[in-house]
């Protein structure tokens, strides 16, 4: 088997695990934020924090052991846009609340029979590719061009002049500590188990593209879990499969749907669900579109930046994450909140 085929099969396996875990545990940043800010129930949010800690510690351990280098990761861009990254985060966060779940969550929900997610995903993929290479791309490239910010360092450890493992241990330890400090969280295995498994899939993805996929002559692009561009790529692959090659991102997306479907069938949790009315549909369409546009501008979604980007400690990630949280806050409780949860 060639290294590119190995990467595709490994991507499928990672996707299957993500989909199964997501379906069984309800792992979701949106739900976590809504529950925390509306009902003071922080279990799901602590699950996400634990996933961040596991992703960070696992990825930095691979780097510290010399297994791989994350220097080529997309998130570690030396000169991000000071406007597009946080603004994209805000759009994404707001859209995520409107659509009642991020891109990855929508894939899991779709496999469980939620047809609303189908609308979200099609709008998301379309908007992502409109922004990445379609009609909105010239505008994005122009905006990024005039707001480029050359950074003194690409990631936090280099900014502080510290070895990478030290801030990773401190930040990862703090996040895990906060997560595990909640007694309700500790008593809820599906939340801590879900967070740990999904967090561990991030270093697994780095390993697949960075080590299994390593080949001097035909390099595979270094990547791990991320969903905005891959959902668009999956739509494109469905339409142009005879002329394009199957890559890691598309196989992860396919794996998530398959894994969630198998789990939903096994748990007898499959039920068709549709919209309550046109306004509900409009919210989902707007949410998907905002996530697609925002996710591309911010270089990643709640998973792509929130877990994968975070695991590199890139400075741009902190801006994107702050944007996603601000956008979600606007969507959940502000005069701009449209959704009725």
């Amino acid at each position: 088997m060639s290294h590119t085929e190995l990467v595709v099969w490994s991507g499928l396996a990672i996707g299957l695990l993500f989909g199964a875990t997501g379906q069984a545990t309800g792992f979701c940043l949106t739900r976590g934020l809504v529950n925390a800010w509306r009902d003071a129930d922080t279990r799901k949010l602590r699950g996400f924090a634990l996933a961040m800690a596991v992703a960070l510690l696992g990825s930095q351990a691979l780097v510290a052991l010399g297994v791989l280098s994350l220097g080529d990761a997309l998130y570690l861009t030396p000169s991000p846009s000071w406007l597009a990254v946080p603004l994209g985060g805000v759009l994404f966060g707001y859209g995520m609340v409107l659509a009642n779940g991020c891109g990855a969550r929508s894939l899991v929900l779709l496999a469980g029979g939620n047809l609303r997610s189908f609308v979200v995903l099609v709008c998301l993929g379309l908007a992502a590719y409109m922004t990445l290479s379609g009609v909105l791309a010239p505008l994005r490239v122009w905006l990024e061009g005039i707001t480029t910010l050359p950074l003194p360092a690409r990631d936090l450890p280099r900014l502080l002049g510290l070895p990478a493992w030290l801030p990773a241990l401190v930040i990862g330890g703090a996040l895990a500590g906060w997560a595990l400090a909640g007694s309700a969280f500790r008593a809820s295995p599906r939340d801590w188990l879900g967070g740990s498994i999904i967090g561990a899939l991030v270093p697994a993805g780095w390993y697949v593209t960075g080590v299994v996929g390593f080949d001097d002559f035909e390099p595979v692009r270094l990547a791990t879990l991320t969903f905005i561009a891959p959902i668009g790529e999956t739509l494109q692959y469905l339409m142009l499969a005879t002329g394009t090659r199957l890559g890691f991102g598309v196989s992860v997306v396919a794996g998530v749907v398959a894994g969630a479907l198998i789990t939903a069938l096994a748990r007898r949790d499959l039920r068709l669900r549709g919209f309550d009315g046109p306004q509900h549909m409009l919210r989902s369409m707007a949410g998907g579109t905002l996530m697609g546009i925002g996710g591309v501008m911010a270089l990643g979604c709640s998973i792509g930046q929130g877990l994968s980007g975070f695991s590199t400690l890139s400075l741009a990630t902190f801006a994107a994450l702050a944007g996603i949280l601000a956008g979600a806050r606007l969507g959940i409780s502000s005069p701009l909140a449209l959704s009725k949860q």
Partner: protein
Amino acid sequence: MRSTPASPPDALRRRLLRGLATAILGVGLLGLSLPALADGPWQRLDAARSVLGDTPPHTEGLVLDLPLVSEDGSAVALTVGFEGRLAEGDYIERIDLFASDNPSPEIASFHLTPMSGKPEISTRVRLNETQRVIAIATSRQGEQFATAREVRVTVSGCLMRGDDAPPEPLSNARVSVPSRFTAGQPEEVRTLINHPMETGLREGANGETLPRHIVERFRVSLNGETAFEAELHQSISANPYLRFHLSPEAGGEAVFEWRDDRGESARHEASFELG
């Protein structure tokens, strides 16, 4: 279908409609087949025509493999291979690649010998917009084969990355060549070398045009005799990658040589056995 019987004027109208539809279909089919009968895209490109001469090439046998859509026009994977039949003793001696709408259409010319074994070559090319890529193969006895393929190139924007320090040109030559060949059995060889392949069309950070600086020639010789040679142009991607085949007639030494347009060169030697 409605169950009421059609009245005579209705039947007439239906027959007329059917006739019209057939006519439109016929014209459409004719329109589709016309371009195939007339000039191939290679006839519309001067550079390709100069290789072809006057006789029309065969349009079957040569296969060009490129993605339909590429999000990164700076490195589009390309494979060209000959799968047709040739007269006994004849072999593909030369393969030319062209990009119809690049600032300079020549991509590369490959010169093959009987020691190159199988005429199948992969590389990575630059395509600056959606366009046709054309391949022309010429055999020792002058048979010519041509094929073309359309590639859509989209903007890659955020993937632009400023390298911290670009590697030294012509450094770190990597060659993957089997240490053991079987007589008459072509084996795959892959080569890669660091080089910016600067087109001479790009502006640097200070706004000045960067001077052209490319690898112009790559040569493989087996025991002193040229087995495979490539002329590269600016449409070959940075860090030129070549995958081709070798079928040596005796064991010995293979020498891989890259030469750039500033007269610098790099060499890699490998010894192999024939079993």
